Protein backbone atom coordinates (compact mmCIF):
# COMPACT_ATOMS: atom_id res chain seq x y z
CA UNK A 1 0.00 0.00 0.00
CA UNK A 2 1.32 3.38 -0.86
CA UNK A 3 0.19 6.17 1.43
CA UNK A 4 1.11 8.80 -1.09
CA UNK A 5 -1.63 7.76 -3.44
CA UNK A 6 -4.87 9.64 -3.37
CA UNK A 7 -7.56 7.06 -3.49
CA UNK A 8 -10.34 9.51 -4.22
CA UNK A 9 -8.75 10.84 -7.35
CA UNK A 10 -8.41 7.96 -9.80
CA UNK A 11 -4.86 7.67 -10.96
CA UNK A 12 -4.29 7.34 -14.64
CA UNK A 13 -0.55 6.86 -14.25
CA UNK A 14 -0.80 3.55 -12.41
CA UNK A 15 0.22 0.97 -14.93
CA UNK A 16 0.93 -2.72 -14.58
CA UNK A 17 4.52 -3.49 -13.74
CA UNK A 18 6.25 -4.85 -16.83
CA UNK A 19 7.11 -8.49 -16.51
CA UNK A 20 10.70 -8.11 -17.74
CA UNK A 21 11.62 -5.35 -15.33
CA UNK A 22 15.30 -4.73 -14.73
CA UNK A 23 16.66 -6.22 -11.50
CA UNK A 24 16.28 -4.04 -8.45
CA UNK A 25 19.39 -2.51 -6.80
CA UNK A 26 18.95 -4.97 -3.94
CA UNK A 27 18.94 -7.92 -6.29
CA UNK A 28 22.14 -6.67 -7.92
CA UNK A 29 23.76 -6.06 -4.53
CA UNK A 30 22.72 -9.51 -3.36
CA UNK A 31 24.35 -11.08 -6.42
CA UNK A 32 27.52 -9.08 -5.78
CA UNK A 33 27.59 -10.19 -2.16
CA UNK A 34 27.18 -13.81 -3.17
CA UNK A 35 30.12 -13.49 -5.53
CA UNK A 36 32.23 -11.85 -2.81
CA UNK A 37 31.43 -14.61 -0.33
CA UNK A 38 32.34 -17.29 -2.85
CA UNK A 39 35.67 -15.53 -3.41
CA UNK A 40 36.24 -15.41 0.34
CA UNK A 41 36.02 -11.60 0.50
CA UNK A 42 33.88 -11.64 3.61
CA UNK A 43 34.79 -8.21 4.86
CA UNK A 44 33.75 -6.59 1.58
CA UNK A 45 30.59 -8.71 1.53
CA UNK A 46 29.61 -7.52 5.00
CA UNK A 47 30.24 -3.94 4.00
CA UNK A 48 28.02 -4.30 0.93
CA UNK A 49 25.36 -5.99 3.02
CA UNK A 50 25.27 -2.97 5.29
CA UNK A 51 23.69 -0.99 2.43
CA UNK A 52 20.89 -3.52 2.24
CA UNK A 53 20.44 -3.27 5.99
CA UNK A 54 20.20 0.51 5.84
CA UNK A 55 17.58 0.35 3.10
CA UNK A 56 15.34 -2.17 4.83
CA UNK A 57 15.82 -1.87 8.56
CA UNK A 58 13.24 0.85 9.11
CA UNK A 59 10.44 -1.07 7.49
CA UNK A 60 11.66 -4.30 9.08
CA UNK A 61 11.60 -2.73 12.53
CA UNK A 62 8.05 -1.49 12.04
CA UNK A 63 6.85 -4.91 10.98
CA UNK A 64 8.68 -6.65 13.81
CA UNK A 65 7.32 -4.23 16.38
CA UNK A 66 3.79 -4.75 15.14
CA UNK A 67 4.24 -8.51 15.41
CA UNK A 68 5.98 -8.63 18.76
CA UNK A 69 4.81 -5.44 20.54
CA UNK A 70 8.15 -5.32 22.35
CA UNK A 71 10.99 -3.06 21.28
CA UNK A 72 13.87 -5.25 22.47
CA UNK A 73 12.39 -8.38 20.95
CA UNK A 74 11.61 -6.60 17.71
CA UNK A 75 15.19 -5.35 17.61
CA UNK A 76 16.54 -8.85 18.06
CA UNK A 77 14.14 -10.30 15.50
CA UNK A 78 15.33 -7.77 12.94
CA UNK A 79 18.95 -8.59 13.68
CA UNK A 80 18.22 -12.31 13.44
CA UNK A 81 16.50 -11.79 10.11
CA UNK A 82 19.39 -9.84 8.60
CA UNK A 83 21.97 -12.33 9.85
CA UNK A 84 19.90 -15.20 8.48
CA UNK A 85 19.50 -13.39 5.17
CA UNK A 86 23.25 -12.96 4.90
CA UNK A 87 24.03 -16.57 5.71
CA UNK A 88 21.35 -17.88 3.36
CA UNK A 89 21.96 -15.48 0.55
CA UNK A 90 22.83 -18.29 -1.81
CA UNK A 91 19.26 -19.59 -1.53
CA UNK A 92 17.88 -16.28 -2.80
CA UNK A 93 16.54 -16.54 -6.34
CA UNK A 94 16.64 -13.41 -8.41
CA UNK A 95 13.17 -13.86 -9.90
CA UNK A 96 11.56 -12.62 -6.66
CA UNK A 97 12.19 -9.14 -5.28
CA UNK A 98 14.80 -9.20 -2.54
CA UNK A 99 12.43 -7.40 -0.23
CA UNK A 100 9.82 -10.12 -0.51
CA UNK A 101 12.41 -12.81 0.24
CA UNK A 102 13.80 -10.89 3.17
CA UNK A 103 10.38 -10.08 4.63
CA UNK A 104 9.57 -13.75 4.63
CA UNK A 105 12.68 -14.41 6.70
CA UNK A 106 11.70 -11.57 9.02
CA UNK A 107 8.18 -12.88 9.49
CA UNK A 108 9.56 -16.33 10.30
CA UNK A 109 11.93 -14.77 12.84
CA UNK A 110 9.02 -12.91 14.44
CA UNK A 111 6.81 -15.99 14.49
CA UNK A 112 9.63 -18.00 16.08
CA UNK A 113 9.93 -15.40 18.80
CA UNK A 114 6.18 -15.26 19.32
CA UNK A 115 6.09 -19.02 19.77
CA UNK A 116 9.04 -18.93 22.17
CA UNK A 117 7.26 -16.24 24.14
CA UNK A 118 4.08 -18.30 24.27
CA UNK A 119 6.05 -21.29 25.53
CA UNK A 120 7.69 -19.14 28.20
CA UNK A 121 4.32 -17.72 29.18
CA UNK A 122 2.88 -21.19 29.55
CA UNK A 123 5.76 -22.22 31.79
CA UNK A 124 5.79 -19.10 33.92
CA UNK A 125 2.20 -19.12 34.96
CA UNK A 126 0.73 -15.65 35.26
CA UNK A 127 3.65 -13.62 36.50
CA UNK A 128 1.49 -10.57 36.18
CA UNK A 129 -1.59 -9.80 34.20
CA UNK A 130 0.73 -10.26 31.16
CA UNK A 131 -1.01 -7.62 29.11
CA UNK A 132 0.10 -7.40 25.51
CA UNK A 133 -0.50 -3.69 25.53
CA UNK A 134 2.48 -1.40 25.93
CA UNK A 135 3.17 -0.43 29.53
CA UNK A 136 2.12 3.13 28.90
CA UNK A 137 -1.33 2.02 27.89
CA UNK A 138 -2.33 0.64 31.26
CA UNK A 139 -3.09 3.97 32.77
CA UNK A 140 -4.39 6.22 30.04
CA UNK A 141 -5.17 9.61 31.51
CA UNK A 142 -7.28 12.29 29.83
CA UNK A 143 -4.08 14.17 29.19
CA UNK A 144 -2.67 11.21 27.35
CA UNK A 145 -5.87 10.87 25.42
CA UNK A 146 -5.38 14.42 24.31
CA UNK A 147 -1.95 13.61 23.00
CA UNK A 148 -3.27 10.74 21.00
CA UNK A 149 -1.62 8.01 23.00
CA UNK A 150 -4.92 6.38 23.82
CA UNK A 151 -5.83 6.40 20.16
CA UNK A 152 -2.60 4.62 19.36
CA UNK A 153 -3.30 2.07 22.02
CA UNK A 154 -6.79 1.53 20.70
CA UNK A 155 -5.44 0.88 17.22
CA UNK A 156 -2.77 -1.46 18.54
CA UNK A 157 -5.25 -3.32 20.71
CA UNK A 158 -7.68 -3.68 17.81
CA UNK A 159 -4.92 -5.03 15.57
CA UNK A 160 -3.85 -7.34 18.38
CA UNK A 161 -7.35 -8.78 18.61
CA UNK A 162 -7.45 -9.75 14.95
CA UNK A 163 -7.10 -13.45 14.13
CA UNK A 164 -3.49 -14.39 13.40
CA UNK A 165 -3.81 -14.67 9.62
CA UNK A 166 -5.72 -11.42 9.29
CA UNK A 167 -3.22 -9.64 11.49
CA UNK A 168 -0.32 -11.02 9.50
CA UNK A 169 -1.79 -9.93 6.20
CA UNK A 170 -2.80 -6.54 7.56
CA UNK A 171 0.63 -5.85 9.03
CA UNK A 172 2.46 -6.87 5.89
CA UNK A 173 0.15 -5.03 3.52
CA UNK A 174 -0.50 -1.98 5.56
CA UNK A 175 2.69 -1.43 7.51
CA UNK A 176 5.05 -3.23 5.22
CA UNK A 177 3.64 -1.42 2.20
CA UNK A 178 3.43 -4.68 0.30
CA UNK A 179 0.90 -5.57 -2.32
CA UNK A 180 -1.34 -8.61 -1.85
CA UNK A 181 0.73 -10.31 -4.53
CA UNK A 182 3.91 -9.76 -2.53
CA UNK A 183 2.25 -10.96 0.64
CA UNK A 184 1.05 -14.03 -1.20
CA UNK A 185 4.67 -14.82 -2.11
CA UNK A 186 5.83 -14.18 1.46
CA UNK A 187 3.24 -16.25 3.23
CA UNK A 188 2.47 -18.96 0.71
CA UNK A 189 -1.22 -18.03 0.75
CA UNK A 190 -3.10 -17.53 -2.49
CA UNK A 191 -3.47 -13.94 -3.55
CA UNK A 192 -7.25 -14.17 -3.37
CA UNK A 193 -6.96 -15.51 0.19
CA UNK A 194 -4.69 -12.61 1.11
CA UNK A 195 -7.29 -10.18 -0.23
CA UNK A 196 -10.06 -11.82 1.75
CA UNK A 197 -8.02 -11.70 4.97
CA UNK A 198 -7.10 -8.11 4.36
CA UNK A 199 -10.68 -7.11 3.70
CA UNK A 200 -11.92 -8.85 6.84
CA UNK A 201 -9.16 -7.25 8.91
CA UNK A 202 -9.98 -3.77 7.63
CA UNK A 203 -13.69 -4.39 8.14
CA UNK A 204 -13.15 -5.47 11.76
CA UNK A 205 -10.79 -2.61 12.51
CA UNK A 206 -13.19 -0.04 11.12
CA UNK A 207 -15.96 -1.49 13.22
CA UNK A 208 -13.78 -1.58 16.34
CA UNK A 209 -12.38 1.88 15.87
CA UNK A 210 -15.54 3.51 14.58
CA UNK A 211 -16.09 5.33 17.85
CA UNK A 212 -12.78 7.10 17.45
CA UNK A 213 -13.58 8.41 14.02
CA UNK A 214 -15.49 11.41 15.25
CA UNK A 215 -13.13 12.11 18.11
CA UNK A 216 -10.13 12.48 15.87
Amino acid at each position, binding site marked *: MKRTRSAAAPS*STAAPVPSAAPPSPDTVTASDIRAMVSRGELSAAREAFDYIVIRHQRRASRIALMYLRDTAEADEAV*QDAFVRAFTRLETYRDEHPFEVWFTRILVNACVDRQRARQRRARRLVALDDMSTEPAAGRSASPERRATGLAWREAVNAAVERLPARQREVFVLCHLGDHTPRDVSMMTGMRESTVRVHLFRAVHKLRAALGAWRDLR
Partner: protein
Amino acid sequence: MICADWHPDDERLLARYVDRDMDATLDQHLAWCRSCTRRLDAMTRDLDRWHHVAADEADALFDEPRMAAQRRGIQQRLGAMPAARVLPFPAPGDTERHAPIARIAAAVLLVAMAGAAVFRVLEMPGRVNSTALRAAATRNPAPVRVVREAAADATELEDIDLALVRPRTAVAELRALDEFTPHVRDIVAQRR
Protein backbone atom coordinates in the same frame (compact mmCIF):
# COMPACT_ATOMS: atom_id res chain seq x y z
CA MET B 1 -21.60 0.27 -19.93
CA ILE B 2 -22.11 0.76 -16.21
CA CYS B 3 -25.51 0.45 -14.66
CA ALA B 4 -26.56 3.60 -12.84
CA ASP B 5 -27.72 1.55 -9.85
CA TRP B 6 -24.43 -0.25 -9.49
CA HIS B 7 -22.11 0.74 -6.63
CA PRO B 8 -18.89 -1.00 -5.72
CA ASP B 9 -18.75 -2.86 -2.43
CA ASP B 10 -16.14 -2.12 0.27
CA GLU B 11 -13.94 -4.95 -0.92
CA ARG B 12 -13.69 -3.37 -4.34
CA LEU B 13 -12.89 -0.01 -2.78
CA LEU B 14 -10.22 -1.57 -0.62
CA ALA B 15 -8.74 -3.25 -3.66
CA ARG B 16 -8.65 0.17 -5.29
CA TYR B 17 -6.68 1.40 -2.31
CA VAL B 18 -4.17 -1.44 -2.08
CA ASP B 19 -3.67 -2.32 -5.73
CA ARG B 20 -1.17 -0.73 -7.95
CA ASP B 21 -3.09 -1.89 -11.00
CA MET B 22 -5.71 0.33 -12.56
CA ASP B 23 -9.40 -0.45 -12.13
CA ALA B 24 -10.90 1.41 -15.08
CA THR B 25 -14.51 0.50 -14.33
CA LEU B 26 -14.28 1.66 -10.75
CA ASP B 27 -12.42 4.84 -11.66
CA GLN B 28 -15.11 5.66 -14.19
CA HIS B 29 -17.76 5.16 -11.55
CA LEU B 30 -15.94 7.22 -8.93
CA ALA B 31 -15.65 10.06 -11.38
CA TRP B 32 -19.37 10.79 -11.06
CA CYS B 33 -20.62 8.96 -7.92
CA ARG B 34 -20.14 11.24 -4.93
CA SER B 35 -21.42 8.68 -2.46
CA CYS B 36 -18.83 6.09 -3.41
CA THR B 37 -16.10 8.71 -3.53
CA ARG B 38 -16.99 9.67 0.04
CA ARG B 39 -16.90 6.01 1.09
CA LEU B 40 -13.51 5.58 -0.46
CA ASP B 41 -12.29 8.79 1.17
CA ALA B 42 -13.44 7.60 4.58
CA MET B 43 -11.75 4.25 4.12
CA THR B 44 -8.57 5.89 2.90
CA ARG B 45 -8.56 8.22 5.88
CA ASP B 46 -8.94 5.34 8.32
CA LEU B 47 -6.23 3.28 6.68
CA ASP B 48 -3.85 6.22 6.50
CA ARG B 49 -4.44 7.04 10.16
CA TRP B 50 -3.74 3.49 11.26
CA HIS B 51 -0.63 3.48 9.19
CA HIS B 52 0.58 6.74 10.66
CA VAL B 53 -0.16 5.61 14.19
CA ALA B 54 1.84 2.43 13.83
CA ALA B 55 4.63 3.99 11.79
CA ASP B 56 5.01 6.98 14.12
CA GLU B 57 5.10 4.76 17.16
CA ALA B 58 7.69 2.45 15.62
CA ASP B 59 9.81 5.33 14.35
CA ALA B 60 9.75 6.98 17.77
CA LEU B 61 10.93 3.78 19.43
CA PHE B 62 13.44 2.96 16.73
CA ASP B 63 15.15 6.30 16.56
CA GLU B 64 18.38 6.92 14.70
CA PRO B 65 20.77 5.94 17.53
CA ARG B 66 18.87 2.72 18.01
CA MET B 67 18.99 1.97 14.29
CA ALA B 68 22.73 2.60 14.27
CA ALA B 69 23.14 0.26 17.23
CA GLN B 70 21.05 -2.32 15.40
CA ARG B 71 23.34 -2.08 12.36
CA ARG B 72 26.41 -2.41 14.57
CA GLY B 73 24.87 -5.46 16.21
CA ILE B 74 24.25 -7.06 12.83
CA GLN B 75 27.79 -6.32 11.67
CA GLN B 76 29.24 -7.72 14.88
CA ARG B 77 27.27 -10.89 14.55
CA LEU B 78 28.29 -11.27 10.93
CA GLY B 79 31.91 -10.57 11.85
CA ALA B 80 31.84 -13.19 14.58
CA MET B 81 30.65 -15.85 12.18
CA PRO B 82 33.27 -18.33 10.95
CA ALA B 83 34.23 -18.02 7.31
CA ALA B 84 31.68 -20.04 5.39
CA ARG B 85 34.05 -21.62 2.94
CA VAL B 86 35.36 -25.14 2.71
CA LEU B 87 39.09 -25.55 3.17
CA PRO B 88 40.65 -27.98 0.68
CA PHE B 89 41.78 -31.14 2.39
CA PRO B 90 44.55 -32.05 2.20
CA ALA B 91 46.02 -28.67 1.37
CA PRO B 92 47.51 -28.53 -2.17
CA GLY B 93 51.09 -27.89 -0.96
CA ASP B 94 50.95 -30.71 1.53
CA THR B 95 49.78 -33.18 -1.06
CA GLU B 96 52.73 -32.55 -3.34
CA ARG B 97 55.28 -32.53 -0.53
CA HIS B 98 54.16 -35.68 1.19
CA ALA B 99 52.93 -37.72 -1.76
CA PRO B 100 55.98 -40.02 -2.25
CA ILE B 101 56.31 -40.77 1.45
CA ALA B 102 52.60 -41.44 1.80
CA ARG B 103 52.58 -43.71 -1.24
CA ILE B 104 55.59 -45.68 -0.06
CA ALA B 105 54.13 -46.03 3.44
CA ALA B 106 50.81 -47.21 2.03
CA ALA B 107 52.54 -49.72 -0.25
CA VAL B 108 54.63 -51.11 2.63
CA LEU B 109 51.57 -51.41 4.80
CA LEU B 110 49.63 -53.23 2.10
CA VAL B 111 52.48 -55.68 1.45
CA ALA B 112 52.84 -56.33 5.17
CA MET B 113 49.14 -56.97 5.58
CA ALA B 114 49.02 -59.28 2.58
CA GLY B 115 52.06 -61.18 3.81
CA ALA B 116 50.60 -61.62 7.24
CA ALA B 117 47.35 -62.89 5.78
CA VAL B 118 49.13 -65.44 3.57
CA PHE B 119 51.28 -66.55 6.48
CA ARG B 120 48.23 -67.08 8.64
CA VAL B 121 46.48 -69.14 6.01
CA LEU B 122 49.52 -71.35 5.40
CA GLU B 123 50.57 -71.80 9.01
CA MET B 124 47.19 -72.12 10.66
CA PRO B 125 47.32 -75.15 13.03
CA GLY B 126 43.67 -75.98 12.48
CA ARG B 127 44.29 -76.25 8.76
CA VAL B 128 47.31 -78.57 9.25
CA ASN B 129 45.49 -80.78 11.71
CA SER B 130 42.37 -81.05 9.63
CA THR B 131 44.41 -81.95 6.57
CA ALA B 132 46.31 -84.55 8.54
CA LEU B 133 43.12 -85.95 10.01
CA ARG B 134 41.46 -86.09 6.62
CA ALA B 135 44.47 -87.88 5.21
CA ALA B 136 44.53 -90.30 8.11
CA ALA B 137 40.84 -90.91 7.82
CA THR B 138 41.08 -91.83 4.17
CA ARG B 139 44.11 -94.10 4.72
CA ASN B 140 43.00 -95.90 7.95
CA PRO B 141 39.43 -95.54 8.91
CA ALA B 142 39.37 -96.00 12.72
CA PRO B 143 35.86 -95.39 14.11
CA VAL B 144 36.74 -96.51 17.64
CA ARG B 145 39.50 -93.97 17.91
CA VAL B 146 37.28 -91.17 16.61
CA VAL B 147 34.61 -92.04 19.15
CA ARG B 148 37.18 -92.07 21.91
CA GLU B 149 38.56 -88.71 20.82
CA ALA B 150 35.06 -87.27 20.66
CA ALA B 151 34.31 -88.53 24.18
CA ALA B 152 37.53 -86.97 25.44
CA ASP B 153 36.62 -83.68 23.75
CA ALA B 154 33.21 -83.73 25.40
CA THR B 155 34.77 -84.32 28.79
CA GLU B 156 37.17 -81.49 28.25
CA LEU B 157 34.37 -79.14 27.20
CA GLU B 158 32.45 -80.04 30.34
CA ASP B 159 35.54 -79.30 32.43
CA ILE B 160 35.83 -75.90 30.75
CA ASP B 161 32.19 -75.11 31.41
CA LEU B 162 32.45 -76.08 35.06
CA ALA B 163 35.65 -74.10 35.49
CA LEU B 164 34.02 -71.02 34.01
CA VAL B 165 30.87 -71.35 36.11
CA ARG B 166 32.68 -71.75 39.43
CA PRO B 167 33.45 -68.61 41.34
CA ARG B 168 36.93 -69.79 42.24
CA THR B 169 38.70 -71.72 39.58
CA ALA B 170 41.99 -73.49 40.25
CA VAL B 171 44.77 -73.31 37.70
CA ALA B 172 44.60 -77.06 37.18
CA GLU B 173 40.97 -76.79 36.12
CA LEU B 174 41.91 -74.62 33.21
CA ARG B 175 44.02 -77.34 31.74
CA ALA B 176 41.17 -78.42 29.47
CA LEU B 177 40.94 -74.96 28.03
CA ASP B 178 44.68 -74.92 27.66
CA GLU B 179 44.59 -78.13 25.66
CA PHE B 180 42.18 -76.66 23.15
CA THR B 181 44.39 -73.64 22.62
CA PRO B 182 47.13 -73.85 19.99
CA HIS B 183 50.61 -73.29 21.39
CA VAL B 184 53.55 -71.57 19.82
CA ARG B 185 55.84 -74.34 20.88
CA ASP B 186 53.73 -76.91 18.99
CA ILE B 187 53.73 -74.79 15.83
CA VAL B 188 57.49 -74.36 16.03
CA ALA B 189 57.94 -78.07 16.61
CA GLN B 190 55.75 -78.91 13.64
CA ARG B 191 57.71 -76.58 11.39
CA ARG B 192 60.96 -78.27 12.43
